[in-house]
């Protein structure tokens, strides 16, 4: 009979009590390991959210700078659907907002692969299928006309954009209004851009995210840059030949689109695009860049005065929308960080409470046990047990009890950690609380998901803490036991 087996027997001797204590301790310990799990998950989510938000903020900032000097010019859209309908460019959708906010801000793009624009109603009916769809081609001479007659212009970039696809008739139903419309199911969009060193070098007319091969070079002909979707559609890779509208081109590179609006856009030189789509001498839009942002409205008015038939859009309105977005994201980021730190302080408070509760449970249970067994302890000492043996006997009992509770706690935690963490921490999981809502809305939009999971480190930590608290909680009761006088054995009961 060693002290270990005596400890085991003493625990199993009062089964109901042991069970209650183990369950209580187990719950406390499961909370103790679930909270750090929740904190870690929350931190991970918050990190993802804030890094995504930071990216968005800096991208938005870059967009603001780029668009400040930009003016888009196009003819009013017409509804005549011929073969290669140039795209609406009132939105200037190329490299701006479709990415973050959806069509609402940018007006949506007519024939983007999203089919009906950016997904908001504004984009849908406003800039999208009805009005934005078919911008009329305009004479190329407008380019030199504007360039030479209006001052304050840094550059004028002529662009031809044409989509290939099939006309589809659909019934649209929106808020009780029903209409039948014909739209184009786009297979690919050709964008012809001037491959001159001036534009290629100074303005972002070509995609920058090349995933295979190389970008289009200045002055080349017969080359085409495909998007990843184009590459899949044509079944062609770098160096392969593709046939576009009956003519053969060589794929020099493949790019990864930076926004949803150009996933099906392929790039080639302007002159080849014009020839290919029977638009020689025509373009679909002009992008004018003012020399500085202060000149933009003056330049835009001058263009409108010179060519009243053009629809002229400046970047001012877009800029303010972008600024609003930027400040929204900045606020979200601050909120996310604030809720993260609030979670941490809550977690610390809760862990302190649980640690205290656990130690107190062990302390009182062991004190009660010692008191209840005073006579037994007196007997043991009278028949020759040393103080240290008695002390280690009771220490062992307390530690053993907490170890069993530790296992139970880990078992509970491994099942219930996400629930416990979301109940006890402000922003893990469902995010029903105000502080959490920001992070959670952030998680859906910016890709962080807070689910508390028990790592092996946390399991080990929980077990270690159980042993530590068991030891701490039994220290005083065991010391009390060791101090019991052997004469207590003589006591009547």
């Amino acid at each position, binding site marked *: 009979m060693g002290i270990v087996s005596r400890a085991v027997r003493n625990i199993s001797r009062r089964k109901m009590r042991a069970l209650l204590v183990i369950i209580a301790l187990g719950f406390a310990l499961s909370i103790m390991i679930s909270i750090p799990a929740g904190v870690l998950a929350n931190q991970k989510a918050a990190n993802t959210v804030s890094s995504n938000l930071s990216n968005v903020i800096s991208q938005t900032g870059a967009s603001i700078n780029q668009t400040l000097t930009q003016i888009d010019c196009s003819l009013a859209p017409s509804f005549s659907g011929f073969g290669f309908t140039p795209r609406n460019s009132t939105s200037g959708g190329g490299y701006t907002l479709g990415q973050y906010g959806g069509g609402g801000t940018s007006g949506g793009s007519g024939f983007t692969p999203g089919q009906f624009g950016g997904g908001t109603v504004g984009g849908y009916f406003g800039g999208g299928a009805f009005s934005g769809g078919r911008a009329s081609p305009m004479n190329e001479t407008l380019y030199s006309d504007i360039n030479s007659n209006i001052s304050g212009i840094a550059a004028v970039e002529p662009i031809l954009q044409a989509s290939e696809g099939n006309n589809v008739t659909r019934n649209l139903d929106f808020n009780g209004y029903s209409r039948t419309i014909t739209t184009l199911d786009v297979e690919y969009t050709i964008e012809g851009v001037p491959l001159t060193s001036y534009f290629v070098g100074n303005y972002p007319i070509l995609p920058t995210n090349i995933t295979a091969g190389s970008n289009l070079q200045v002055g080349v002909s017969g080359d085409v840059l495909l998007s990843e979707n184009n590459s899949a559609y044509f079944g062609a890779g770098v160096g392969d030949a593709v046939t576009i509208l009956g003519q053969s081109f060589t794929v020099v590179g493949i790019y990864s689109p930076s926004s949803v609006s150009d996933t099906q856009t392929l790039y080639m030189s302007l002159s080849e695009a014009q020839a290919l789509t029977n638009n020689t001498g025509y373009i679909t839009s002009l992008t004018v860049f003012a020399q500085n942002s202060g000149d933009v409205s003056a330049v835009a008015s001058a263009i409108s005065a010179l060519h009243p038939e053009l629809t002229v859009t400046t970047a001012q309105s877009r800029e303010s929308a972008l600024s609003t977005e930027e400040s929204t994201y900045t606020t979200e980021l601050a909120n996310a960080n604030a809720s993260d730190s609030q979670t941490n302080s809550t977690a610390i408070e809760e862990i302190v409470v649980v640690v205290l509760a656990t130690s107190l449970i062990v302390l009182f249970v062991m004190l009660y046990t010692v008191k209840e067994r005073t006579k037994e302890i007196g007997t043991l000492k*009278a028949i020759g047990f*040393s103080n240290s043996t008695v002390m280690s006997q009771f220490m062992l009992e307390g530690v053993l009890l907490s170890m069993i509770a530790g296992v139970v706690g880990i078992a509970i935690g491994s099942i219930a950690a996400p629930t416990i963490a979301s109940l006890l921490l402000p922003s893990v999981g469902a995010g029903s609380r105000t502080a959490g809502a920001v992070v959670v809305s952030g998680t859906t939009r910016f890709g962080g998901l807070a689910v508390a999971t028990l790592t092996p480190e946390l399991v080990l930590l929980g077990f270690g803490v159980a042993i530590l608290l068991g030891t701490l909680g039994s220290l005083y009761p065991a010391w009390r036991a060791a101090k019991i006088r052997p004469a207590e054995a003589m006591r009547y009961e």
Partner: protein
Amino acid sequence: MSKSVLQSAKPVPQAVPQSGKPVLQLENLSKTYTLGKRDVPALSNLNLIVNAGEFVAIMGPSGSGKTTLLNVIGCIDKPTKGKVLLDGIDASALPENQLYKIRRDKMGFVFQTFNLLPYLNARENVELPMEGRGKSKSEQKKRASELLAMVGLSGREEHRPQRLSAGEQQRVAIARALANSPAIILADEPTGNLDSENKQGIIKLLANLNLTQGTTIIMVTHDSQAARNTERMLLLKDGKIVKEMQGLHLNKKNQTCPHCGSRIQINDDKCPACKKPIYASDELFSS
């Protein structure tokens, strides 16, 4: 019960202290308790020598200091003054962290309430004092079984206390007290919680152990019948030994009337021949 002692096939090897040598010496022993601001003397200038192999009963009224004396002898309590020599060792000079060894190796306690650990079986209870003395588990087990056989509990080794009668529990306690072959068995009212039949059995067992094993036994008791079956009776009053009488050792032959010398039987209160009370010492047993 005595049969099992006498006919035990394998006598338990014991370091029997040489008969006649003092195993316990109390010199000018005093013990004073402080209650509030008042000093209450429990023992005052008490001298006593107990020789190896003696069977001593300590009697006396409540508050006479019986329990204090037993506690001091058993190294459970420290004397205020005086010496306690156990087997030649001055226990009163030892620090607490040494005393447990004296209790373990030199003493065997038998309690009125048996004090067995309820979650251990009979054998495990007997093994308890052997723990920490460097014996192997199997040796402990063997020794415990032999001791249980000696007190007449063969076949009951695996029974827990709740499945044993009161008398059987006290036998287990006696076996436990013998575990480390102590110099002295200290019994505190060992028959106090037993019915008359079991009382008799326990007294017989103790007397037999004393006779056959030479175990020194000091027993505190209220029970005159139990006391007179020892060989030496001490009456304690106000912390002093006021009277000493010879007892009738139950198992010793030739028990005779102290008044007329005719033979008497065990449990006779009066001499069958002279009709005098065998112990005319009513004051001895009145408490």
